[in-house]
C-alpha cells in the first residue's frame, strides 16, 4: 500500500470533521472518529515538523538525478 499522503490525510480530516459536525453519528463512532482524527493530525504534524529542508535535484544528461544548487545559493 502506498504511504498516506499529506494531502489525503488532510482530506480525510475534513470528512471526519463534517461527520462530527453532523451530530448524527452515535457516540461510540464519534469517539473512534475523534481518535482517528487525532492520529491524522499527529501524522500531518510530524510531516511538517520532522521534514528537513529538501535539497533540489536535477535530472542529468544520462537520466541520473543529482543535487542541484542555483547560483549564489548557500551550500
Amino acid at each position: 500500500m502506498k504511504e498516506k499522503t499529506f494531502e489525503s490525510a488532510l482530506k480525510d480530516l475534513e470528512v471526519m470533521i463534517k461527520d462530527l459536525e453532523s451530530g448524527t453519528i452515535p457516540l461510540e463512532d464519534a469517539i473512534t472518529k475523534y481518535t482517528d482524527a487525532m492520529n491524522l493530525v499527529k501524522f500531518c504534524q510530524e510531516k511538517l515538523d520532522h521534514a528537513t529542508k529538501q535539497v533540489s535535484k536535477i535530472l542529468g544528461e544520462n537520466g541520473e538525478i543529482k543535487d542541484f544548487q542555483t547560483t549564489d545559493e548557500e551550500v
Partner: protein
Amino acid sequence: MNEKYLSITEINQMIKMMFDNAPFLKKVYLKGEISNFKHHTSGHLYLTLKDDDSKISAIMFRSAAESLSFVPEDGMNVLVTGRISVYPNGGNYQIYIDKMEQDGLGNLYIEFEKLKQKLQKEGLFDPKYKKEIPKYPMKIGIVTAPTGAAIKDIISTIRRRFPICKTLLFPALVQGVSAKDDIAKKIRMAQDYDLDLLIVGRGGGSIEDLWAFNEEVVARAIFDSKIPVISAVGHEVDVTIADFVADKRAPTPTGAAEMAVPTIQEVKTILKTKELEISKLLERKLSESANTLKKLSSSYVLKNPLVLYETKIQKLDSIHENLRKSIDLFLENKKKSLEHLKSSYILQNPSSLYEKKIENFETLKILLHKNFESILVKKEHDLQFTIQTLKLVNPLSILEKGYSFVKKDGQFVTDSSKINVKDELEITFFKGNAKVEVKEIN
C-alpha cells in the same frame, strides 16, 4: 570681398528644397529600432530610428499616429514608410513617418492567433480538462532553464514557503530553435517521476524569446500531461499558448511557486484549527449526550415512579367495575329466563308431555313392525346370494373341473425340488384319492 553670405535660414531652405526635389526621398521604406521615443502632448510622436551603426530622427504627426495599432516604445523593431525632409529650424534631416508597424511581430501574431484558434477548436483550453492543482504538493517538477532568474525564484520561493516539498528540475532550453522540442520532451519525461505538480516556464524576455511557449508541440505536451501543470512564462503581460493549455497560469515564475505551495505556517495553523475543531466537536457530542442522559433521568416518570402505577390502578378499577356489572347483568338475565320457563305451558300442564309421547310410541310400534318384516325378507335374499358366491370360490369346485392336489407327509407339495425319487405322495381328486411313488423328477 564680394562673396555672398547666406543666412542660416537661407541655406537650410535651399537644402530642404534639394531634399524635397529628390524623387527617391519622397517615399522611403526603413526598418530599425526605436529609441528616444517621446509622445508629445500635441499628439505628435518624436523618436529616433537606429540600427547598429547609424540613426535617423523621425517624427510622426498626430494624424498618422492615430492609426497605429500598437504603442511604440524604445527597443521595438519597426518597419516605417515616409518621406525624408529637412527641419530647417534645427538644420537636420528627418523622416516624416506615414505608416509604422512592428517588425516580424505581424507574422508571429498571425501564427499565434491561428494556433490559438485551432487548439481552442480542438478543446485543448476547455475548462473540463483542467486538473485540480493539489493543495499540498510534496514533489514538484520544474521544466525550465537550469540557469537564470526563473529557476532561482521558483526554488527559493518553494523553500521559503514549504520547505518539506521536494523539487526536481528538468533542465530545458527555453529559447532558440530547439527550445520547443526540448521543453516538450522534458514535460513528457517528467511524467515518469511520480510528481504531484509540474511548473513549466521561463523568465521574462522579448516576445521572440518566449516564442517556444507559443508552439504547438509544447501546447500538446502540456495538454497530455497527467500531472497538473502551472505555466509561468515571462511577466504578467506575456500571455502564451502554454498559458491557455496549462491547468493554471501564473504571472511569473515566483508567482507559480506561490500558487504551487502553501506556506508551512499556514498549514500548521490550519492543522491546529482542525485539531481544536475536532476536540470541540467531540466535547460537544459528549456534553450533548450527557445532557440527554440528564434530561431523561430527570424525567417525570423516573422521578415519580408511582405515576406508572397510578394509571394502571385506575384502569384495573374500571375493569373490575365493568366485570361486576356484566356479572350482575348475566345473573339478571338468567333469572328472567327461569321466570319465563316457569311460566311455560309444559310446566303448567305436565300431562301434555305424556300424551304426546304415548301417541308417538304407538306410531313407532307400527312402523317397527313393518320394517322388521321387510328386513327379514332382505336378509333371506342376501343369504341365498352368499351361498351361490361361496360355491364359486370353494376349492372343491376346482377339483370338480379336473384339478388335483398332491401332499407329502400331510404337507401340500408346490415345488418338485422338495421331493425325491421313491418318495410316497398322496394325490387327492374331486372324488377319492390315490397313493403314488415318484419315479423321476424334472
